[in-house]
């Protein structure tokens, strides 16, 4: 299974990549929403099975990325990560058909549960 991980923080990206690879996933990485969109364009869509994106990123935030994905790629599962546990944010994310919302900090096990739940 291929997961596209989007986060503007390289340390987070590396952390997530290692964790997910250990669990047997293929990981694609993007440092911004725009880079993620390019990733979609480059790769054959069949290659990406799930998107795991940070919410707060410069340029395009996670919810904007979700909107873009919904427009172009339909119901591809998306999990948003955030360090803000704001209820309004959760509601907005869910309204935009984001599949799941996970608040930092979380463990690999918790992330795995979410991935299994949405795929």
């Amino acid at each position, binding site marked *: 299974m291929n997961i596209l991980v989007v986060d503007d923080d390289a340390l987070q990206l590396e952390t997530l990549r290692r964790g997910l690879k250990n669990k047997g996933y293929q990981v694609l990485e993007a440092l911004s929403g725009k880079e993620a969109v390019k990733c979609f364009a480059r790769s054959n869509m069949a290659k990406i099975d799930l998107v795991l994106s940070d919410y707060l990123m410069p340029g395009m935030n996670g919810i904007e990325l979700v909107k873009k994905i919904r427009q172009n790629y339909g119901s591809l599962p998306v999990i948003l990560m955030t*360090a803000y*546990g704001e209820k309004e944010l959760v509601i907005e994310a869910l309204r935009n058909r984001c599949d799941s919302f996970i*608040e930092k900090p979380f463990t690999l096990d918790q992330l795995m549960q979410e991935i299994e739940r949405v795929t």
Partner: protein
Amino acid sequence: MKTVKPSMPHHSSQDSRQGEFPARHSALGSFFDLDFPRRNRVKGLTGIAKPFQLDPWILKDHKDTEQRIRENMSVLQAIFDGIPDPLLLLDGDFTVNMPLNTAAADYYGVPNPQEVIGKRCYAALRGRSEPCEGCPYLSVIINGHGGTFERKGLMDPDRFEEVTIFPTGIGVLIRIKDITRAKLMERQLIQSQKLASLGLLVSGIVHEIKNLNNCVTFNIPILREYLKELIPIIDDYAERNGDFELFGMSYPEFRGDLFSLLGNLEHASDRISATVSDLGEFVRRGDKGRQRWVELKEVIERGVTVCRCHVQRMVKSFEVDIDGDLCPIFTDPQALEQVLVNLLINAGQAAENEDSWVRLRARRGDTCGDGVVIEVSDNGCGMDEEVRGKVFEPLFSTKEPGRGTGLGLFVAHTLIEELGGRIEVDSEPGKGSTFRIILNNANHRRIKNQQFSAIKLPVRRQVLPQ
């Protein structure tokens, strides 16, 4: 000595005025060879009377003029008294020229405003032998144009005053205006602006810490997995080499230490996470949309804990009675807590007799629309109808200056309205007051609208219902 006839045009006939001729003033008459009318109080004219040989008619006319001046003066004094700020009229050497106005007499505590006339202001009003320190009066006189400055209250240092010194044709007018309320508002505004920027700063830091802490939280279990893979190999090695030591520890000791270190890291990371979450919660205080399902008992108890000591210092007994059957409500717990603290402290401050008490009672509403009723009662001074009508208005306060901003109950009212509830007051002077918060059972409506009743939003993870 020859007497000159009255020469004023309206005094054309002496005979016709005969009956009105003033009675002779014996004391002055013996000094001057003149018929001085009585009670004319023309002492200022005695010096000039001699050379001009004044006629009693002229003096009588002067009396009329004087009467008019006196009338004018009393009109002026009435206007002066009618101005609500303390006013003083001084001349160039600090001498008070005119009776203090009523506000100034109250301000300085002068029982008779007339008695200060002709005295130096610092002596008559402050009992000093020289001008007060830092008094800008002289510099204003020298410069010739007026000025305004702010100072701490002269009579009450807890207040703020704005003093205007304004030179006029008849002396220098000084106005003292109480600006305590405006100053407090300004301070409050600055304080809330500061808090708002502090809030932004803190939430930025909270975000950053949570992000970085995520690396720790996320990686520790992975590290533990790695070690679990590695440990059997080392176990094997240690078995074959009985005296295997690491960092001066026997291998079993080292092995235990390794996992306890990881456990410590994990624990610390959890603590960081809990602390910054609380901090984030704290700075979001006052934001709209912080409503959630809460146990009312917990919210009330938190509010009571915050102000219990304070209230107990003011009243003899402080009772809290929360019904056991209250259902959870959908509200902003922090706003509600703030309102309760406000009401409890107000109730405490109203105390005036020895057996004073404050009671808080929370119970289910009487009708199905009223979800919960929270009452804060006291047996303090109470309020009359006029005060009761204004009690929720902004900037209205009956507290002594410096103690109340007049915003507490206004804020309480606003917050409760934002929560879709209402706040009422019963009060009788001398008997006490009861403030009643009624939180409507609007919660069901809310759920219907949002269709989110099935969402469980745990603190850590938030998940869409399947």
